[in-house]
């Protein structure tokens, strides 16, 4: 309770669908709703950029996750920038479908009152010889680049460096390590890539947090005693298994049902986000409505104790009801944020706990 929120409010400017999105008040736990294409995923992306101070790996990951880098990287990142239509992939991140590098308005992500908490600014610039990478003499001394400013600290990221990075990158990399502010993202159920879950496990194995994860799992499967990982990383991938009271041998978590896997990933992501941000896409995936209030309660509890700020999206009415149900017993007000497209921008409506209760009790649609 005493710990301040990382972001008490949010202002996203010039990023994807957001011309100027202002969210006046954020809670410790924030449920984001809105129709398709209203900007829910973009909001999570903006937070990933913020928490990583626009790390190049996060930039690439965001572009790739939307198939915006379907062609070879040299093609999409270094096309002649003024050629019409053929534009570098990073242009996708900027608001208003800009067609040329020269006309980009900067992206800004941060709190509305930026006195104490830093903001992130990403602007287009031209790389000069001074910025050039001296280690790699193959790089041109001039070319398009991003100027990245975080709380007054500035750096230049040449697009050519992004290409290099993409070519060098292996399938395996520890994406959580690139965040300055701890930030763990959980995608939709069944979208774990590159053994991410196993890596999250390695960070908490044999610690108090391991027990917290197992406690959470018992909401769904009370018979689970311990969890571990088996399997060869490069062949089968590493797979979570559980010791249960009923089986003499460890059982793959997947064998206990999709919901168990989802809760495992959710709990594991949560305890790894200590002191930072937890981002969950489609919270309710694979979860029966009847268990959702308990799962939310667990997330509220961990967020409070581990000083985490949570951002979760949903389309589901059951999920909103479960959120409300769990929120009713909270001291620190959780917040529901609805995003709506309006003209060339997105507006946010904030619903406080009292209003979420009124909406769910009277079946007033706020999704």
């Amino acid at each position, binding site marked *: 309770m005493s710990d301040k929120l990382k972001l008490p409010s949010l202002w996203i400017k010039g990023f994807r669908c957001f011309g100027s999105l202002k969210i006046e008040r954020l809670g410790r736990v924030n449920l984001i709703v809105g*129709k398709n294409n209203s900007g829910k995923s973009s909001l999570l992306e903006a937070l990933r950029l913020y928490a990583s101070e626009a790390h190049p790996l996060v930039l690439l990951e965001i572009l790739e996750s939307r198939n915006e880098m379907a062609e070879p990287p040299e093609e999409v990142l270094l096309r002649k920038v003024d050629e019409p239509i053929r534009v570098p992939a990073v242009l996708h991140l900027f608001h208003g479908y800009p067609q040329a590098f020269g006309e980009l308005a900067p992206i800004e992500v941060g709190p509305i009152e930026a006195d104490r908490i830093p903001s992130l600014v990403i602007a287009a610039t031209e790389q000069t010889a001074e910025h050039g990478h001296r280690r790699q003499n193959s790089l041109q001394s001039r070319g398009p680049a991003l100027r990245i400013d975080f709380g007054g600290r500035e750096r230049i990221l040449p697009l050519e460096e992004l290409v290099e990075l993409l070519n060098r990158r292996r399938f395996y990399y520890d994406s959580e390590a690139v965040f300055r502010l701890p930030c763990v993202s959980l995608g939709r159920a069944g979208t774990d890539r590159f053994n991410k879950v196993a890596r999250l496990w390695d960070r908490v194995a044999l610690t108090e947090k391991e027990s917290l994860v197992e406690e959470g799992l018992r909401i769904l499967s009370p018979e689970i005693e311990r969890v571990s990982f088996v399997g060869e990383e490069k062949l089968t991938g590493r797979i979570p298994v559980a010791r249960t009271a009923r089986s003499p041998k460890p059982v793959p978590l997947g064998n206990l049902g999709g919901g168990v896997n989802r809760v495992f990933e959710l709990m594991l992501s949560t305890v790894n986000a200590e002191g930072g941000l937890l981002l969950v896409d489609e919270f309710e995936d694979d979860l029966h409505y009847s268990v959702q209030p308990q799962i939310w309660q667990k997330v509220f509890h961990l967020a409070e104790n581990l000083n985490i700020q949570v951002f979760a999206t949903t389309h589901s009415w059951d999920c909103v009801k479960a959120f409300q149900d769990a929120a009713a017993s909270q001291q620190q007000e959780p917040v529901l944020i*609805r995003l*709506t497209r*309006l003209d060339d921008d997105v*507006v946010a*409506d904030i*619903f406080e706990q009292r*209003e979420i209760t*009124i*909406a769910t009790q*009277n*079946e*007033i*649609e*706020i*999704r």
Partner: protein
Amino acid sequence: MNREALLLVEGKDDERVVDAITRGTQIHSTFEIRWADGFSWITLTLQTALRTTGLQRLGVVADADTDLAARWMSLRNILASRGYANVPESPDPKGTIIASPVPLRPRVGIWLMPDNCLPGMLEDFTALLVPPGDPLFVYARDCVRGLPHVRFPRSHIPKADIHTWLAWQEEPGKPLGTAITARFLDAALPPAQAFRQWLVRLFG
């Protein structure tokens, strides 16, 4: 279900009366109705209802009760807090309609029972639909006023009047909405027409 049009009313009887009054019009069943627990529930719910996703039209049917001006002010203040600066000082006798002041907010209609002018409630409105010259209604009113012992508060006398009268129809004990569809009450009389026209202007 139409998610673009919503009507808040005070109770189940109001819902049934609205249903009966709009039967046969193009707006019948084109809007959702929510009710729970009187005027305090309406004031509690209105702020959130105004922000229903995709809502285009929102109606409120409430009792004027003993102090019409106070009820009007209370609704007006809630609307003002949500950006509706264009609410008139007092209700329109034909039923108030307020245009949406900002994008993504609904057009709002307010009807204060019985007729946007007098104090009263739903039962005062339905009393206006008793066929003119009906001999039993005068008798029912006299009965209520001549009771040797009164168990209900004075403010509920109109309820006692109409339900006493309903107890003496061909099928005794019909609720208000059914009494309209069964034509014990006359939905062609001017007060019903005015209410219906307001609903059509709001939801049509």
